[in-house]
């Protein structure tokens, strides 16, 4: 009606009004395509500790840093291969020790300055010079003994002390983020402590978004990088809001306060009414029950085996987790070399067999032990509390005569005791932070790492094999060794592998440029 009006000012007004209301589709009766918001708001139960790449090991921190900084190489999970990011190509010498990286000619930081070999050396040297930085452990051992040289402005050469198969994949982790030296020096000067203090709260990367505001335990805002060399960011800004309770996330999502809810329970996802998109991702983390061999009778192999047969995996996965998980038989996840799908069939729910094994071991009347878990923690990406999982395990083991006392402890207390090998048993998960199996396999079998001392599991065969695989550069040979290790771990190991969650994320319609990825949670573009 308004459009029929002949008066010009009125027409103009009508056009403005129509545009303002987003009613462009009113002339053609087609379904309205949901609009992409200018700001993407993500509700997440996770918090960041720091913004300094080598020092942040938390899930949320890694996700943010992954989208703020870029690395020399990146990993494509679909094909299981490494691809270039800041480095367009690289050469590896025949002895497997010298790597030559060629940086992208047009790569620039958010401040507009080109990414140079100098920035790479600066970023890596920071990791080497900072032994306390937790996440730096991914690349520090290799880099500390390597020689790093800048052949020219766009070429970096790294010569390792010994060949290492996991070196290249480890450069895809956030610890190896390339930081703009010029920007850091300009803001914080040459002093290392001042630089760390500045990078703790600010970012100087080349990724699609840069941190503009961060209020710890509340929210972090990322602004679009106008100078992004690899494309145009979809959103003007992205806000990651800390919302701990899944019920609050659901309420916020339904109110339209957030566009993405990261931690909804499977039951909540099912009961959601309205127009929402559900994204399913892959998580490389494996949930398991760790049994400490220093606590009798866990040193008896039959006892460990009995427990592996006694857990009702099917009801845990399809009942408690509403099917949003996959049975895991070993530590290496799908998509990484060494993954062995057949391990998942090694054990199933068979309480009779478990009882028989206990009898053989001389524990026909059962025994009792304390099972620890982190207070208030829940299964990643699914929101199901670990306390519920603990009660299920308690009930399953009660069926074969084992009395389980479940003990909830806060993370720092629990982790301190776990590291000191003082916990008899706990529910734990381990996720890769680099796209290579060495990290996760070593943490569960290599006696030289601190991780296996936590469960007092020393198997020389496994340790030897892991060391052997570490220096191999042939992926197939390595994968074969990891499969052997996986089999032996499954057979005699102290871990009762349970499942790998399938993170389920709900978004409002119109959200694009947000994809789920293992390790780094999500990719923004």
């Amino acid at each position, binding site marked *: 009606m308004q459009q029929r009006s002949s008066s010009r000012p009125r027409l103009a007004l009508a056009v403005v009004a129509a545009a303002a209301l987003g009613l462009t589709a009113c002339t053609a009766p087609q379904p309205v395509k949901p609009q992409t918001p200018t700001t993407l708001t993500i509700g997440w139960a996770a918090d960041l500790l720091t913004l300094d790449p080598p020092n942040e090991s938390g899930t949320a921190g890694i996700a943010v840093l992954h989208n703020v900084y870029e690395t020399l190489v990146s990993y494509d999970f679909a094909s299981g291969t490494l691809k270039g990011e800041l480095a367009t190509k690289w050469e590896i010498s025949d002895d497997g020790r010298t790597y030559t990286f060629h940086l992208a000619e047009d790569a620039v930081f958010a401040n507009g300055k080109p990414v140079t070999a100098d920035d790479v050396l600066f970023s890596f040297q920071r990791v080497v010079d900072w032994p306390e930085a937790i996440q730096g452990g991914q690349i520090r051992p290799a880099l500390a003994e390597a020689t790093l040289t800048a052949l020219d402005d766009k070429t970096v050469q790294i010569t390792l002390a010994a060949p290492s198969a996991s070196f290249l994949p480890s450069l895809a982790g956030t610890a190896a983020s390339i930081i703009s030296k010029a920007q850091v020096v300009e803001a914080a000067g040459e002093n290392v402590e001042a630089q760390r203090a500045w990078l703790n709260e600010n970012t100087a990367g080349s990724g699609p978004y840069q941190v503009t505001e961060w209020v710890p335990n509340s929210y972090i805002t990322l602004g679009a990088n106008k100078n992004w060399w690899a494309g145009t960011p979809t959103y003007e800004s992205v806000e990651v809001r800390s919302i701990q309770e899944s019920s609050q996330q659901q*309420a916020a999502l339904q109110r339209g306060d957030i566009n993405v809810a990261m931690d909804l329970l499977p039951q909540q996802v099912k*009961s959601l009414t309205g127009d929402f998109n559900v994204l399913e991702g892959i998580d490389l983390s494996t949930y398991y029950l760790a049994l400490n061999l220093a606590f009798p009778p866990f040193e008896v192999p039959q006892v460990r085996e009995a427990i592996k047969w006694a857990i009702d995996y099917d009801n845990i996965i399809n*009942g408690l987790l509403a099917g949003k998980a996959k049975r895991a038989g070993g530590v290496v996840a799908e998509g990484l070399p060494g993954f062995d799908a057949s391990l998942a069939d090694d054990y199933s729910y068979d309480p009779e067999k478990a009882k028989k094994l206990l009898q053989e071991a001389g524990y026909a009347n059962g025994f009792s032990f304390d099972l620890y878990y982190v207070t208030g923690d829940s299964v990643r990406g699914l929101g*199901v509390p670990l306390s*519920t999982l603990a009660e299920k395990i308690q009930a399953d083991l009660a069926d074969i005569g084992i009395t389980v*006392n*479940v*003990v909830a402890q806060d993370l720092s207390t629990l982790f301190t005791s776990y590291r000191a090998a003082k916990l008899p048993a706990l529910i734990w998960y381990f996720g890769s932070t680099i796209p290579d199996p060495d990290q996760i396999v070593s943490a569960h079998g290599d006696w030289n790492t601190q991780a296996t001392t936590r469960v007092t599991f020393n198997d020389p065969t496994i340790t030897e094999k892991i060391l052997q695989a570490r220096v191999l550069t042939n992926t197939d040979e390595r994968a074969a060794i990891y499969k052997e290790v996986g089999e032996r771990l499954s057979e005699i190991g102290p871990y009762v592998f349970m499942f790998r969650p399938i993170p389920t994320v709900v978004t409002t319609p119109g959200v694009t440029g947000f994809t789920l990825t293992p390790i780094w949670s999500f990719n923004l573009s």
Partner: protein
Amino acid sequence: MIRRGTAAGTPGPGDTRGQERERLFRFSVSALLRPLARLPGVGIASFITVGVILLVAVIGPMFTPYDPIKQDFGALLAPPSAEHWFGTDQLGRDVFSRVVTGARISLLIGVAAVALAVTIGTVLGLLAGFLGGWVDTVIMRVTDLFLAFPALILAMAVSAALGPNLVNVLIAVGAAWWPEYARLARSIGIVERHVQYVDAARGLGVRTVPILATHVFPAAVPPLLVKATMDVGIAIVYVAGLSFIGLGVQPPTPEWGLMISDGRIYMQSAWWIATFPSLAILITGFTFNLTGESLRDVLDPRHQTRRRGTNAATKLI
């Protein structure tokens, strides 16, 4: 000058703080309940309800339709129905059976924790008040030390230090609570120190402990009983609170606070898990407080006198 059965002690150092604390502590509940408790029939009704709750706690668990810790994966998160009156929880356990069984656990811990606090508090308080001198000073300074801490924080600290389980949570709540009883008992001890029958007993050569037991303690019973009855309700809420944050009773014990903690994340998809134990806590806490208030009217001479006086005055007019 001589006031029997006042909740606050006679004036002394730190006493104002004690009174203030007590006033604040029970303000919200008591201010609402006092007029309510005066209503005709409410006293009887609350006594009956407490009786029913006690009955449920004692014999209820024998008649529950399901085993309260039996998991049933065929009926996860089932809504209330004829089969499961209060629905089932995230592990398929029957919420009705758990609430009923939880009554026994909650009451047991509530009563035991208060009993522990009353025992310690009364013994120490009577000794302090009756003996006076350095005994009084030492005991009261220790009491002050405990009172300086918020009771719930103290209970959390004790429970965390001892390791959370059923017995320790009882100790934790008892340890946080005894100073209040010590103060109350002390005020009675001071009063009783100089009454004639105590003087007479002393004159006859009766020793201190028998005097305390046979002459002084009976005078302390009514006010202690009133306070203890009200506190059982609060203790149940405390225990539920500790369990809610993981510092109380451990799973799979069907404890109300624990059930609310488990059920709260399912509030939108399965409201029944947290709602029914919440109602149970509400009703139990409320009833015990109301009973305490009614009991005070019966046992506390001051309240009776005032009421009778008013009635007499009304009649006269």
